[in-house]
């Protein structure tokens, strides 16, 4: 793990800077890569979508709020217009009554003025003054104060200057005893009759702020927003915090407002963003100004803000959780596989690989498992084969000098000797001697077919004495096949089998024929008998070792089959053809190899 990694591109000259910046291998794990990529992509998408949504919604909300505010101010403007018109018409009525009255001091006029005063709550006083500032007439019960200074008051001077109806700025009405009231004065130069003479005078009507207050107070522009009214000179006619402004505790930036008659704009002069909407009253030139706090009228914007912040947070957490989980899901089987493979590599072939997860990983693990199984199988096979080989060789060694066979044979010899059949004894002993010589064959495992056939011939000679010529035999072989190699003692167990199981119980004379031939580079040796034959079941189990001959040389038919298989390959060996009561044909097939080939190694192998 700690050895330095190979560079990804070994041919590229490694720059020292690159080397330092190289990402550590731990950070290149699948899980981390998946997690980071997934998170980054999702968050990026979420942020982009949020920003786009926010922009869209915010703009709409802003426009709506702005429009709404303009409508409200428009409404106030309309109401005030009506009110000012009403004041104008009251003024006109008063003027008409005064002008049409035959004398200014007539009781009828007095009475009418009184009615007028009592009809309106917002009417403070009505009075007529001469252009010199002398009091002429007014509503009854009013006592003029001293030192009023009315000649210099704006309503008086303006009325004298123009013949139009004029509206004053808010001011204190100090003319009459009683209270000092904040009023707006309407004044105009009018004609009146006194003592039959036509004179000019100034008619004054004072209105208090009751109605204007009521009209403006209803304006709700958000929680902190408000509306105020300015006169053309910038004096505040109405303001929800009028006294605070008068006391100098608050300040309203009216300069930009005065420049426009009809406008909506965003003001930042106080440090806070505020929407200002200005409308102008036609008759008086008063400006109605709506002020709404930007952050308030666009509360939707802030709500949206908050929502999006939360949304993004939740998305982020979810995405990270999901991506961590997902990458874990993908990476963990691979990591498990990696760990297992490492274990296998360290030599533990029995490690089971049961990795579940993605299809590919599962397949990979399955295949790897199969590979491992095959390796195990092959190793088992090698072990088994080695074991069988040694066992077979041991058995062969044992069979080379079979004491039982020797004993039986010697018994037969003794019997022949007793009967004085010297010639036969000689033949028998000769055969036995040759039999054993070939059996041992100086410890060689490989002999020629010639020798093998001789070996079996001697065996058959011996056995024919013992079985008292109960059978005949014939051995035929092609000339070419005789010099081919064979592993030794492959025919004797088969013949022995044929004798003991096929012919011994046969009432008639038996026949064993052995043929050897070369065919397509293969040696084919057939051992046929006309004995009892065997059933299919016996044939099927005979090579798998199900039947073990109880008598005989002990070198089983199966042993022969396995030795051929081990030496020449699995495709070679024995095959049986048999019919009950007809006989059996055993065919041995193995590749032909001329004598003298591979003898050396065989020798070495035989003498460990």
């Amino acid at each position, binding site marked *: 793990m700690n050895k330095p990694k190979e560079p990804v591109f070994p041919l590229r000259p490694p720059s020292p800077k690159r080397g330092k910046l190289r990402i550590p291998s731990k950070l290149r794990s699948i899980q981390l890569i998946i997690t980071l990529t997934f998170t980054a992509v999702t968050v990026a998408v979420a942020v982009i979508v949020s920003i786009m949504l926010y922009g869209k919604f915010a703009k709409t909300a802003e426009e709506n709020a702005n429009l709404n505010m303009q409508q409200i101010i428009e409404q106030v403007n309309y109401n005030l217009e009506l009110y000012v018109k009403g004041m104008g018409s009251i003024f006109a009525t008063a003027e008409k009554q005064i002008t049409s009255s035959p004398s200014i001091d007539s009781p009828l006029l007095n009475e009418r003025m009184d009615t007028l005063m009592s009809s309106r709550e917002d009417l403070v006083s009505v009075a007529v003054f001469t252009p010199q500032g002398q009091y002429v007439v007014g509503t009854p019960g009013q006592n003029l104060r001293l030192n009023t200074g009315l000649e210099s008051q704006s309503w008086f001077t303006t009325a004298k200057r123009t013949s139009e109806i004029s509206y004053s700025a808010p*001011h204190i009405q100090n003319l009459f005893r009683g209270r*000092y009231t*904040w009023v707006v004065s309407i004044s105009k130069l009018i004609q009146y009759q006194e003592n039959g003479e036509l004179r000019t005078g100034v008619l004054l009507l004072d209105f208090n702020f009751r109605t204007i207050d009521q009209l403006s107070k209803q304006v709700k522009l958000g929680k902190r927003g408000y509306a105020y009214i300015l006169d053309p000179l910038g004096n505040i006619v109405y303001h929800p915090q009028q006294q605070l402004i008068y006391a100098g*505790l608050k300040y309203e930036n009216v300069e930009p407002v005065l420049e426009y008659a009809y406008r909506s704009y965003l003001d930042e002069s106080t440090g806070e963003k505020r929407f200002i909407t200005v409308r102008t009253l036609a008759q008086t030139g008063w400006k109605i100004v709506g002020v709404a706090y930007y952050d308030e009228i666009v509360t939707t914007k802030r709500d949206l803000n908050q929502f999006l912040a939360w949304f993004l947070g939740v998305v982020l957490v979810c995405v990270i959780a999901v991506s961590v989980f997902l990458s874990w899901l993908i990476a963990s089987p691979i990591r498990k596989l990696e760990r297992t493979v490492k274990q296998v590599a360290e030599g533990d072939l029995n490690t089971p690989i049961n990795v579940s997860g993605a299809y590919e990983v599962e397949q990979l693990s399955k295949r790897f498992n199969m590979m491992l199984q095959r390796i195990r199988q092959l190793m088992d096979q090698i072990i088994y084969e080695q074991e069988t080989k040694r066992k077979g060789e041991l058995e062969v060694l044992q069979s080379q000098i079979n004491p039982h066979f020797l004993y039986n044979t010697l018994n037969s010899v003794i019997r022949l000797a007793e009967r004085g059949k010297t010639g036969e004894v000689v033949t028998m002993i000769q055969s036995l001697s040759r039999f054993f010589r070939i059996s041992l064959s100086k410890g060689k495992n490989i002999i020629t077919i010639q020798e093998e056939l001789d070996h079996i011939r001697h065996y058959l000679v011996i056995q024919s004495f013992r079985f008292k010529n109960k059978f005949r035999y014939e051995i035929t072989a092609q000339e070419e096949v005789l010099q081919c190699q064979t592993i030794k003692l492959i025919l004797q167990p088969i013949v022995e089998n044929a004798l003991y199981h096929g012919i011994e119980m046969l009432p008639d004379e038996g026949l064993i024929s052995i043929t050897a031939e070369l065919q397509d580079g293969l040696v084919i040796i057939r051992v046929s008998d006309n004995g009892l034959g065997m059933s299919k079941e016996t044939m099927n189990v005979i090579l798998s070792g199900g039947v073990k001959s109880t008598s005989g040389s002990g070198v089983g038919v199966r042993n022969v089959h396995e030795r051929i298989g081990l030496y020449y390959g699995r495709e070679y060996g024995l095959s049986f053809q048999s019919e009950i009561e007809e006989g059996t044909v055993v065919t041995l097939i193995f590749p032909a190899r001329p004598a003298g080939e591979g003898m050396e190694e065989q020798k070495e192998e035989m003498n460990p």
Partner: protein
Amino acid sequence: MRSLRVWLTILLCGVLWISVSSCFNASPAYISTSKTRNIHLVVKMNKGDYWNTLKLGAEAAAKEFNVNLTFKAPDSESDIEEQIVMVEESIKEKADVIILAASSYMGLAQVVDQAAYSRIPVISVDAEVGSARVRSYVGSNGYEAGQKSAERLIELLKGYGEIGILNFTNSSPDQGPGSTGSIDYGARDADEREKGFLNYAARYPNVKVVQISYTSSSTSEAESLTREMLEEHPGLRGIATLNEIASQGAAKVIQSAGKGYLKMIAFDSSPSMMESLQDGTVQATVIQNPFSNGYLAVKYAVEALEGMDIPERVDTGTKLIDLENMLWPENQKLLFPFVR
């Protein structure tokens, strides 16, 4: 390694969250009005235009800052004991802030210390109190106001003559009915005004302050005190009154006695004083800014609760108003509260 990765992830999340949320949220710059605060306003007296206007200002601020304002005042300006009881009650009721216009500089000192001990900030308005624990003082400079009054009166008298002063709540133990029981200290503002006036008048050798009378808080008492003064000193040429009640009483006497030659400088701007000013009984009046006093006291109280730094002393100013300038627009705004 694994835990490191977890921490790394959490850190990343945190950084992202902070950066995202900081993009969207900016705290508003105005004082939060989401929670209601209990502020107790204890002034000297529950009647008089001056205190009404101050209350109006306080109420305006209370409305603006979502304050639950409790207004308390004794019946009389000289009722120090009652005022002490009221502050004690406010402490018991666990007011968030107490705003106090102390009737006695020393008399209220102890109870203010007590409030500070209960962790209730105290802001004094109009009249200071003898405690170091007061967070802020909102009001006018009494000494300066006294000097202004003296300056104009002496100017009107052309620099000579006898002057009588009508002040309120006595500062010396043996004089006047203002002293009650063991507490013998007067209100700080009264004290300061008198000092200012006397110090200014002392520059003029021909000007003699022949009498200083102290009224408690009723107009009728002020009237009788003025009458006494006029009888005692027939050569009196000028009168200076140093608070609203005294001014009203003196003006009434001068008008009814027909002593038009007497020059008088009044104090504060009640409507009746304006009437007197306009009809020439009173030549000038020194006005304070009660509306601002009330408003600013509450505003600073709220700011103090918010943990902001508030100024130790706020001078809302005084102004001399006479017939000539009383109708100037800016003075109209000061003199006549815009009451709806």
